[in-house]
């Protein structure tokens, strides 16, 4: 099976460990992710001002690309891309007047987009569709006492209309990881924001958030945190180094994409993990648990 695929910018740079593990993983299920031709930036942050439609053009152009590709199921890995594209679909469907203005603006581009023609699907949703049984079948390694804290962040859960699972108490990542034989921990901070783009010029907020989130995961016995957003990844991973510099008692924890764990369990060669992209080295714990 072939599915259209929108990688977004970060997966080609900081997030190579995410794409690098996700795509071979899908191949195990005979799913080939076909990258859109000449894709644009998704716009990253969905514009929330009612009178500035310019900022909707970026995600809509991407959706138009998907429509034109003929393969209209569009896979995303990055949580921010997922959010922006999905919200753009809701936006175009819910306000006809604004849709018309956008169509007028894009008249030279030919293809019109109405919202229903493309389905944006996140990798987690796709894996849930594939089902626990199929996942189980492909697992090659067994791990014991390896406790994972799945972290969702914001963009997969909010606002409600784009949520891939319950906004308050999601379980989808737990279900997939448990199907692969992992143990997940109680993790009350799994839906809390890492402070997102504030890392650029307000990193103190990210520091405070990461401290809370990591402490909660550690307290609940987690060996690693897994997630699905390249920005959360950077924030939770890199800033732990900064926190550790200030607070010697702070206990760090490796952060991984959930696909890295699955790829290791399913015996995909470990090079795709690009462990050099990690700030907190996850290899010791992975070795200890027999995954490397």
């Amino acid at each position, binding site marked *: 099976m072939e599915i259209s695929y929108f990688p977004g910018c970060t997966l080609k740079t900081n997030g190579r460990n995410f794409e690098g593990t996700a795509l071979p993983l899908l191949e195990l299920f005979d799913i080939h992710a076909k990258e859109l031709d000449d894709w644009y930036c998704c716009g990253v942050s969905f514009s929330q001002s009612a009178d500035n439609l310019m900022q909707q053009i970026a995600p809509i152009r991407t959706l138009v690309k998907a429509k034109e590709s003929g393969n209209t199921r569009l896979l995303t890995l990055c949580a921010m891309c997922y959010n922006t594209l999905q919200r753009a679909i809701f936006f175009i469907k819910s306000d006809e007047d604004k849709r018309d203005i956008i169509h007028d603006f894009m008249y030279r581009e030919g293809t019109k987009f109405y919202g229903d023609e493309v389905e944006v699907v996140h990798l987690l949703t796709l894996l849930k569709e594939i089902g626990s049984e199929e996942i189980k079948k492909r697992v090659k390694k067994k791990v014991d006492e390896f406790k994972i804290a799945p972290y969702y962040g914001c963009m997969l859960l909010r606002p409600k209309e784009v949520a891939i699972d319950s906004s308050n108490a999601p379980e989808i990542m737990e279900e997939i990881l448990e199907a692969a034989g992992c143990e997940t921990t109680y993790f*009350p901070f799994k839906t809390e924001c890492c402070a997102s783009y504030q890392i650029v010029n307000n990193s103190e907020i990210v520091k405070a958030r990461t401290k809370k989130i990591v402490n909660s995961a550690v*307290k609940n016995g987690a060996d690693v945190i897994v997630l699905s957003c390249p920005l959360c990844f950077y924030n939770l991973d890199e800033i732990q180094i900064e926190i550790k510099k200030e607070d010697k008692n702070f206990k760090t924890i490796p952060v991984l994409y959930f696909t890295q764990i699955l790829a290791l369990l399913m015996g995909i060669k470990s090079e795709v993990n690009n462990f050099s992209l990690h700030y907190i080295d996850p290899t010791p714990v992975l070795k200890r648990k027999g995954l490397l």
Partner: protein
Amino acid sequence: MKKIGVFVCHCGINISSTVDIEAVKEALKNYPGVTHIEDYKYMCSDPGQNLLKERIKEKGLDGVVVAACSPTLHENTFRTAVMLVGMNLYNCEIANIREQCSWVHKDKKVATKKAKLIIKSVVEKALLNEELEPVKVPVTRRAMVVGAGIAGIQAALNIANSGYEVVLVDKNPSIGGRMAQLSETFPTLDCSQCILTPKMVEVSQNKNIKLMTYSEVVDVSGFVGNFKVKIKKKVKYVDWDKCNGCGICIEKCPVTVSSEFNQGVGKRKVIYTPFPQAVPNKPVLDAENCTYFIKGKCQICKKLCPPDAVDYTQVDEFVEEEVGAIVVATGYDTYDISNMEEFGAGKIPDVIDGLTFERLLSSSGPTNGEVRRPSDGKIPKEVVFISCVGSRDPEHHFSYCSKICCMYSAKHAMLYKHRVPDGQPFIFYMDVRTGGKGYEEFYQRAQEEDKVIYLRGKVSKLYREDGKIVVCGIDTLSGKYVELNADMVVLATAIRPSAGVNEFARLLKIHYDENGFLTEAHPKLRPVESLSAGIYLAGCAQAPKDIPDTIAQASGAAAMVANLFASDHLLHEPLIAGVNEDLCSGCGFCVTVCPYDARKLNKEEGIVEVNEVLCEGCGSCSASCPSGAAQQKNFTDTQLVNMVKAILKD
């Protein structure tokens, strides 16, 4: 041609400010059939009614049209007035020029034109109205009360003490309902069971009350004064005629399961009475959990029962009762905490709902009134109470206020403090609503004397950490984000109509609102009646309410029943649809559209017959009749055509 008098009301300035009364009079005075026209500031006033009566006599009128407010308000007033001077009341018609005209228009010209047309069309109707007499219906002077909580008990006792027989039905093994589960009641802190049990005993002793517990209504047919109700008496596996209530079976039963009465925090036996003061105090056997029914072995209860009352061969029994009125008092459930994901969705053991906390406070409860948390039996030292859980949240749950939570949370905090003097109660609230006698004083006492700390704001989430429950919230008064490490959290979950009540409402053909609460006939003026005649409402089935309000409504419902039973017959509106036998082809369309089962096809004669008592005059049959055989009295096709013509003529 009839002589019609038209009386135009100003309704102060409600009508006259947008309708030009003089112009209306001018337009109508020469209208065919109109022999007199007059206006008055308030037609509904005594002088207004007198004017109507005088002119009927003086001018020899044989029909009147009062152009005024909606007929739902004063039709009765004017009809009674005309009857007093000997006119048949169906010759008095109302033209609604207020709600349907003056109130909805701003432009005086438009409104005046519309008023003229409305009056003209009603004059056309009045010209062809027949004189009718009400249909007499016999009344079975016997009532049924469904639900035997405090509302049902009160209604049943009031009806029974008025001298009428009452069948009191409840789905549980005992009467008492939710009130029997409560610890102490606000604002007096009376022990709930202590004030309830005398009433329960009174029910069991009252000769006029036929008690049917562990029973459910499965079918209702008939109409006001003449209902037939089918009841399922659920199988008890105990012959209550033989049982002497000695309790040996309960004592010796080897299997315990979680007790519904104790909200799951206590245990009961498989053969059980829900609580010690149960009425009737006789056990039922829960076959689902019984070793004998599961494995075919045990039979301890049967072997030990002195009067040999245990009978494993019993089956459900169905009985039918004939009653003239029904009081629906089916009560409430609390919104399940599994719906509250941000509060742990019921997975955090020491996060409980208010009703469960009542059981922990109750001296007859599983902890004998000591506040011990369910997870480990420890006495909690810091307890957080959260109001408006599911209530006042139109975005995620319910928009309405559950009304009793402010008071019971204050009571919970207070009682907790009395039981655990070194403990600290906290209440998160958004508004404190203490409308009720002595309620505000009670709230003040909770703050002043028991040092209950009120935090104004919502709790955003709860989570477990180090054996505590971390409560994350806001106090908007100080503007601070607050975190509390609680030992126990009590959620004041929304009051919901009890499970299954909406199916029951459909059985009774009564309405319920978008939240599932039963709809009263008028939100202000008819709060204890349903929209179906002869069916009355009491207690939380209609809307969340506290005990005093429940008692008041239940007594009100009982008074309505007694009012209905004051005569051995009822007068039914004669505005019904008959059948012109010469025209009826027996096609049966009308039978299928009739919502009241009032029409039946007589296959031998090939015509449709009407039960005049069941017909509510809705007109569905006349609208669907292809031959014009179904004609509604005083709403005939000719009248309707004339009315439409009158409107279209100008």
